[in-house]
């Protein structure tokens, strides 16, 4: 019997379009090393779920010893993958957080076009949900706030001198490398 004393771990989060193509994906597990392995995993997951109706409630399935929780809205397909001994409800809370945050970030216009036009927000969103497989935050509004809090403390001054110094170091380093 599996004894899971480990932390809940997320293997990947996928956002695909209605043809199974990537909009944004993030892998935290080294189970899929190459880009082609990732692409074929995405294709597989997409093909196994595309016929189901995951539009009202998140759906769930078990594929190749991974639990996949997924939800579809318009032409976007959201997926969260975890290992087969993971607590399904924890995985589903991550999907819900991702989904809620994206909905807020795209101002309720949850579709592929809007997602691509705000791809930077989606990528930041993925970065704020999970760090190296570890769940950072599952509360959708909080995730969205972390992504968009660009302007908080916007008038705090940056000491430019320090940065200039940093650049001096950088240039010096570069020159040294080139002279070698």
């Amino acid at each position, binding site marked *: *019997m*599996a*004894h*899971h*004393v*480990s*932390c809940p771990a997320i293997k990947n989060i996928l956002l695909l379009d209605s043809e199974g193509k*990537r*909009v*944004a*994906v993030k*892998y935290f597990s080294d189970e899929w090393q190459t*880009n082609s392995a990732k692409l074929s995993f995405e294709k597989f997951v997409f093909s*196994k779920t595309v016929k*189901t109706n995951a539009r009202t*409630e*998140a*759906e*769930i399935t*078990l*594929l*190749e010893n991974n639990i996949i*929780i997924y939800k579809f809205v318009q032409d976007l397909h959201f997926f969260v993958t975890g290992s087969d001994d993971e*607590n*399904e*409800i*924890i995985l*589903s809370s991550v999907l819900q957080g991702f989904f809620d945050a994206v909905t807020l970030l795209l101002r309720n216009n949850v579709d592929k*076009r809007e997602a*691509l*036009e*705000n*791809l*930077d*927000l989606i*990528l*930041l969103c993925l970065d704020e949900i999970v*760090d*190296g497989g*570890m*769940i*950072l*935050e599952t509360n959708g509004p909080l995730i969205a706030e*972390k992504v968009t*809090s*660009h302007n*908080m*403390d916007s008038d*705090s001054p*940056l*000491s*430019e001198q*320090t*940065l200039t*110094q*940093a*650049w001096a*170091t*950088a240039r010096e380093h*570069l020159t040294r490398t080139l002279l070698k």
Partner: protein
Amino acid sequence: MIAKLGNLCGLNAGFFVFRRNSEEEEEEEEEEESRCSSSTTRRQGKYLEDSPPSAPPMAQPLVKKDDDHDDEAEYSPFMGIEKGSVLQEARVFNDPQLDARRCSQVEATEVFFAVTKLFQSRDLGLRRMVYLIIKELSPSSDEVIIVTSSLMKDMNSKTDMYRANAIRVLCRITDGTLLTQIERYLKQAIVDKNPVVASAALVSGIHLLQTNPEIVKRWSNEVQEAVQSRSPLVQFHALALLHQIRQNDRLAVSKLVTSLTRGSVRSPLAQCLLIRYTSQVIRESGNNTQSGDRPFYDFLESCLRHKSEMVIFEAAREITELNGVTSRELTPAITVLQLFLSSSKPVLRFAAVRTLNKVAMKHPMAVTNCNIDMESLISDQNRSIATLAITTLLKTGNESSVDRLMKQITNFMSDIADEFKIVVVEAIRSLCLKFPLKYRSLMNFLSNILREEDCEFTYLSTQILHFLGVEGPKTSDPSKYIRYIYNRVHLENATVRASAVSTLAKFGAAVDELKPRIFVLLRRCVFDSDDEVRDRATLYQNTLGGDGSVVETDKDVKDFLFGSFDVPLVNLETSLKNYEPSEEPFDINAVPREVKSVPLADKKAATKKPTGLGVSSNGPPSTADSYERMLLSIPEFAKFGKLFKSSAPVELTEAETEYAVNVVKHIFDKHVVFQYNCTNTIPEQLLEDVIVIVDASEAEEFSEVLSKPLRSLPYDSPGQTFVAFEKPEGLATVGKFSNILKFIVKEVDPSTGEAEEDGVEDEYQLEDLEVVAGDYILKVGVSNFRNAWETMGADCERVDEYGLGPRESLAEAVNTVINLLGMQPCEGTEVVPPNSRSHTCLLSGVYIGNVKVLVRLSFGLDGPKDVAMKLAVRSEDESVSDAIHEIVASG
């Protein structure tokens, strides 16, 4: 570095594209760098020139950046410009039309340097993207130095988001030496009042523990403090890190669990961790069952009443997995899982049924209480849940329910993923052990799954081989198929091997030059392990001429190999059985051609026999080809000439009536034959002299020429009776016919199957039948409609417009017209995209008299529901074009 860039690509939808210019420009940059403050305008100009005129729309934050740049260009010309060109590249990141082919190889180092220059920017959104890229690029330690000081500065920034992100980036790219430098900041960050900063430091600590455990272990005190944080996520991260720091110290973990289970954990995620750690402690402490109480069980049990579903489920799952769990301990966990079974959320149902499925393996009795809820999940939309429910029921149910559940599983075996097929097979294995009496039916189930898949494959292979045999010799280079066909002789089962031998013989007969080679192959097949394969090889060697020389093949041989076999196999079998060896040779022409319905008793025996080699033609034929063959075999119909079209069966009775009758309309040039397929569904009756009385008073141009009764119609054994009409030659004559089924009923004793001597005449009213214009059009597609349309020309074109009135939808209107005309939709135009207001549909067909017809239908919505249609018909004959319009006008 290029490999690392691959990682970066993985991040994005398409691929990040860095359109860096050649080294030439790099040199320029060097120059620029040395001069540092000169000629801003020139470079700025170059940047503008470079930017593509049709730059795709960018995400908001990056657009804003453009303005910032111009300001900052004054302050540091070089950096400003460089940022410009980086930004220009960055535009591509958000290009919705990203194209992988545009992805050019770029040195990630260069990108790295370029990106780091964006640190200059004050825009937090942009800075965040920089963090993201640095993490993805994971620069080497050489390069890390460049950004370290900037990141360290950000770590001390007053902006919390900068601090949190800088910590995560720095810890991702850092090495041991650098870590000692920043250790002090990290320890402070762990207890920072801002939860985002604290979480960033804690999660980074969890990752760093793998590479630099000795450093992270020094943070214990701070981490312990963070466990008490008011922020749920900080508590979760701190608890995870604290446990990992102490995981090898059993006593410490036990202490941790003891203190926390008293109730200071608020975060559901942290509570789930605590449940896991508690179970670990329980496992490691062994069963302390002397007092009957398991340590910490009360804590797990109290978690079943937590308000968060994930905590309830975690606790229930851990309880079911306790070593030597007693039924008293199990009961509360099973109760909460049972509640989940009827949740509206698929995730909860799945989680509960999967856990109960596991419990049922060891403690089936504990799960029986859930049987009723489980039963309702058998029809769950989510197949995974349904399968788990059925296999759980198989484990917990009694012997009597096994057969019913097996039947339900059979229905969707093909729909479910392999993982679940394994679950099913495992459940069946344990059932075999549990109910030895059911062993036979369970094994049947398993072997059926195997055989069905196998059979499908064999059938497909024989069909392909048959097709190759007919069409292959007509191709420009038939010899290239030989090898593939002969390979089947080596690789496949006997059925396929026999088909392959026949196919080889066909090549030999049709292509004289190949004959010697085919002979060599056929001679080898004579040594096959299967007698049918050997027999075929020998037969074909003899029919093809024996000596293997290049000679012309007899017409008789070709007829034998390629002609259709018009003797019903059942009749042939009966005749062969009755044949007594004598002077007189067996005469195949004496075998009756009429398909007799098989008496019930014989039929049962026949179905038990394994299907022989080849595809036997039991049962009424259904495809156009076999209709034609069947009609030709009945002498009365053979003289009607070539069959033009056979309709799909039209039901003449309601479902589940005493006698089920449907009719197939066979259209000939001068005749129409109605084939009535009759089934007697009453076991106590035998029908004899079955005939359909057709009243053609509403079909004036048709006159009945012959009626062919069915001698005997036993229970559940379909038979056919025919009625033929004459009609004007080559015309699409329509009419309406009413039908009455007449027959003699004989009572049958169900125990013996014997029918009584005397019968009673009876009749049965059937539905009316119509011959419509669509019956005279064959569905024949064209590969290129436009070409065909142009070639046909407008000579016999007829165009008109029709109002179709209010319709359910555009798609429904399109479908109705297609069905009315009975023509073949071309180029997928039968599909109407959702929400369209207009649609063009292309149809093609052949009208009776072999006249090609092409139709172009333009539909449009006129008002909310009204559909208008323009019909353009082209054909080789004006009257046919008119006839098509007539069909639509009267339909």
